[in-house]
């Protein structure tokens, strides 16, 4: 689905100095993969995300979406209808006055005719559990519901990959649960590829692969088990393991023997009381 080869992205700040936002990233995201990207503020996460649907272009290296180079202008529409983005602030991404019109906005722009358009909107709203709100004004929705509408907009464009940049940072616990559950369901049931940027390590646990960035480079990559068992390295990166992993590490340091890679609550329970 996504192929990142030697990606560098430099820009010049107002002092005329070169800032290396991305400094040589290689990454491979399979069709149907679920990838979490973590890293300190300023490590390059959002810059990376914006390359996936050609909002930004590489200074060096290449980004391919289903084999299409994001640097080639003729690929732009095909790429943007395949890869959609959901941002942090739910209020900044809704354009229409009625939920179903908002979801229809993307495919309509792509020239999708009726009745196909109506069918896509209905299916997209059903997939995110927002059918009951189709006729409502978005201003009546909670933050979590708005994020789900934004996701539905991508599905209605027949998107196959959703890139979410800290989608729950502004949400209450229920909103977080809703967004996470929706993303997980779309990945499992429809094989939608997910790239999920987060500061919340518990949310990153839902992914199949985790990339930790540091100063525009990949510092750690692997399954959640592999990445989150590197507790010292995570600490150095300004990150942390999820709660169960942190506790397991502390207990080990205190001399208690705990076997296996512990990152989830159930795994810690299993290790302590087999």
């Amino acid at each position: 689905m996504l192929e990142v080869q030697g990606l560098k992205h430099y820009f010049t700040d107002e002092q005329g100095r070169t800032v290396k936002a991305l400094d040589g990233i290689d990454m491979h995201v399979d069709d149907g993969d679920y990838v979490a990207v973590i890293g300190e503020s300023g490590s390059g996460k959002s810059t990376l995300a914006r390359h996936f649907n050609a909002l930004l272009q590489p200074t060096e290296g290449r980004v391919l979406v289903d084999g299409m180079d994001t640097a080639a202008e003729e690929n732009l529409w095909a790429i943007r209808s395949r890869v959609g983005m959901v941002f942090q602030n739910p209020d900044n991404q809704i354009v229409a006055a009625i939920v179903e019109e908002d979801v229809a906005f993307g495919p309509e722009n792509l020239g999708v005719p009726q009745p196909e358009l109506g069918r896509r909107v209905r299916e997209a709203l059903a997939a995110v559990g927002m059918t009951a709100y189709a006729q409502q004004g978005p201003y009546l929705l909670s933050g979590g519901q708005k994020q789900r509408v934004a996701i539905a907009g991508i599905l209605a464009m027949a998107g196959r990959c959703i890139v979410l940049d800290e989608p729950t940072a502004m949400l209450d616990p229920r909103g977080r649960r809703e967004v996470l559950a929706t993303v997980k369901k779309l990945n499992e049931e429809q094989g939608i590829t997910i790239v999920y940027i987060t500061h919340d390590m518990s949310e990153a646990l839902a992914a199949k692969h985790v990339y930790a960035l540091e100063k525009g480079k990949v510092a750690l990559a692997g399954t959640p088990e592999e990445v989150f068992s590197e507790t010292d390295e995570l600490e150095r990166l300004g990150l942390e393991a999820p709660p169960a992993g942190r506790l397991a590490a502390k207990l080990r340091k205190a001399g208690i023997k705990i076997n296996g890679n512990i990152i989830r609550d159930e795994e810690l329970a299993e290790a302590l009381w087999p």
Partner: protein
Amino acid sequence: MAITLEQIHYTYSPGTPFARVALQGVTLTIEKGDFVALIGHTGSGKSTLIQQMGGLLQPSEGKASVDGIDLSRKEKEIKAARGKIGIVFQYPEHQLFAETAYEDIAFGPRNLGRSPEETDRAVRRAMAQVGLDFDTFAQRSPFRLSGGQMRRLAIAGVLAMEPAYLILDEPSAGLDPRSRRLFFEQIVKSHKQQGMAIILVTHNMDEAARYAQRLLVINEGKLLYDAPPREIFAKYQKELEEVGLAVPAAARLAAVLRARGVPVPADIITEAELEKFLLTWVKKRGKK
């Protein structure tokens, strides 16, 4: 000395088709030196409530006062009361405006009529409080700082006015784990050293459990619970989920362990507490 709210009701756009009831009879007192966390789902009335505390909104019914000064009095009379309350809104870094960090922080104390010497002292102290080195950052443009630094600078601007009550609305949203931890270490220090009352509005239950001495839960414009976090998180797990909230991660983990048969007490709500319990428990079990 306290912020006192008595039977506060508030309706937005009253008498119009858009009328929306935000608060329905909230009574509470925030004492000097309190560290309070305020939780509730989006739209539960949290933001309206803190605006009432800060005198930014007049109640439709009821009475709000700060250190005995009624906030419904004339603008001039409540100016002193308002000066006691500092509010840091969400994403305060969007409100930075000055050429240098120093000027941005100095704006508040100057506006309160402080002398240049007092202002200088206040700026230096506020920068130290948020962990921004004076020599490194004072003359920098606020817009050349990292996200976490900008957030701290904006908070320094409020601290420089030396409020007796500091209201923080989602201060750690969007910060990475390290910035989050550093930020709270500094807030806890200000709280302890200066006895500043802290009112922390948050969606993060872990922060509420770890830092607050008292937890306010608001739902549909009413105060649902007002008790120590330990009591609320231990007793009302189901109720909290029903109103769109949750228990802290450590309490969830404790519940999983308990279901497995590990005898974790119900009142464990932070990671440090859980760690301490497990260490003693594992060692004790080893001896048997």
